């Protein structure tokens, strides 16, 4: 990061009080910190969830594969595929 907080704060001490410099700098710093924190947390969470999803998918595939080779009882694969995807959305006017 090229913008270092201490250097900005150092500049802040030279700013006359009546122009409200501290508030302005606080706004920038808080905004930047929030954005960086948000993106970092989001990226971390997403990586974790996608890993769980990949893992789950692989295990389900394995289970179904084993089930098909074994007694022929398919677990899970015969479940209602998706409640919300059951019918394609048709919202065009009917007339």
């Amino acid at each position, binding site marked *: 990061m090229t913008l270092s907080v201490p250097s900005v704060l150092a500049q802040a001490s030279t700013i006359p009080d009546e122009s409200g410099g501290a508030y302005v700098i606080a706004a920038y710093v808080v905004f930047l910190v929030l954005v960086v924190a948000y993106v970092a947390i989001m990226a971390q969470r997403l990586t974790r969830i996608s890993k769980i999803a990949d893992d789950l998918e692989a295990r389900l595939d394995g289970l179904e594969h084993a089930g098909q080779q074994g007694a022929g009882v398919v677990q899970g694969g015969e479940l209602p595929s998706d409640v919300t995807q059951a019918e394609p959305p048709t*919202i065009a*006017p*009917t*007339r």
Partner: protein
Amino acid sequence: MSQAPKPISARRAVLTILRKDLLLERRSFELLPAMGLLALGTMIVLRFALDQETVSGDLAAGSLLVPLLFASLLGVSRLFGSEERDAGVQQYLLSPAPAGALLAAKVAGLALVLAALEVVLVPVFGLLLLGPDLLPVLPEIVLVLVLLDLTLATLGGIVAGIAIGARSRELIVPILVVPLAIPALIAAQAALAPVLEPGAEALAWRWPGVLAIYAVVLALVGSVVGEYLVED
């Protein structure tokens, strides 16, 4: 089925639904009195909240518009009441009438109900609260209120359409109508305030113009999205 049903023209459909709604309101006569009582009650509250025996100018415009806004909320909440009670929207869709006509009829009905309310409310306002004489400025007031009715009715129709399937409609409708109505109320307030001053000033034509433009834009948007609201 050997023959497709003959399509009904939009105008006929609008007029039929409008006549049905007005007849229902005339027979039950419950919405208009409720709107009137709420508006009158709000005026009385404003008299004490503002601590004024009589009002003029800005305060007068506000004391007329705020009760109207509150009353219109009642009307919007009930706009599709008769349809929703008996699965009327679904039944309407079975008919060969165009889908958008239902919304257009509701907008027209709401505008008429608001106008009927004002026929009573404006003289009452003139008697109870307004300082300056009402009669000399009546034409200006009527013009602004008619435009305001059209705007409120159009946005009320759209909001009521949005809220058709909503579980808590009585919560959703007011919080949607009020922000959407703010530009209309700003324009109506700015138009009426000088007119209601003691030495009534001339109407600044730009504000009725703003109201008209807002009404037209809402009507255009409503005509684009309206058919998607009446559907199931």
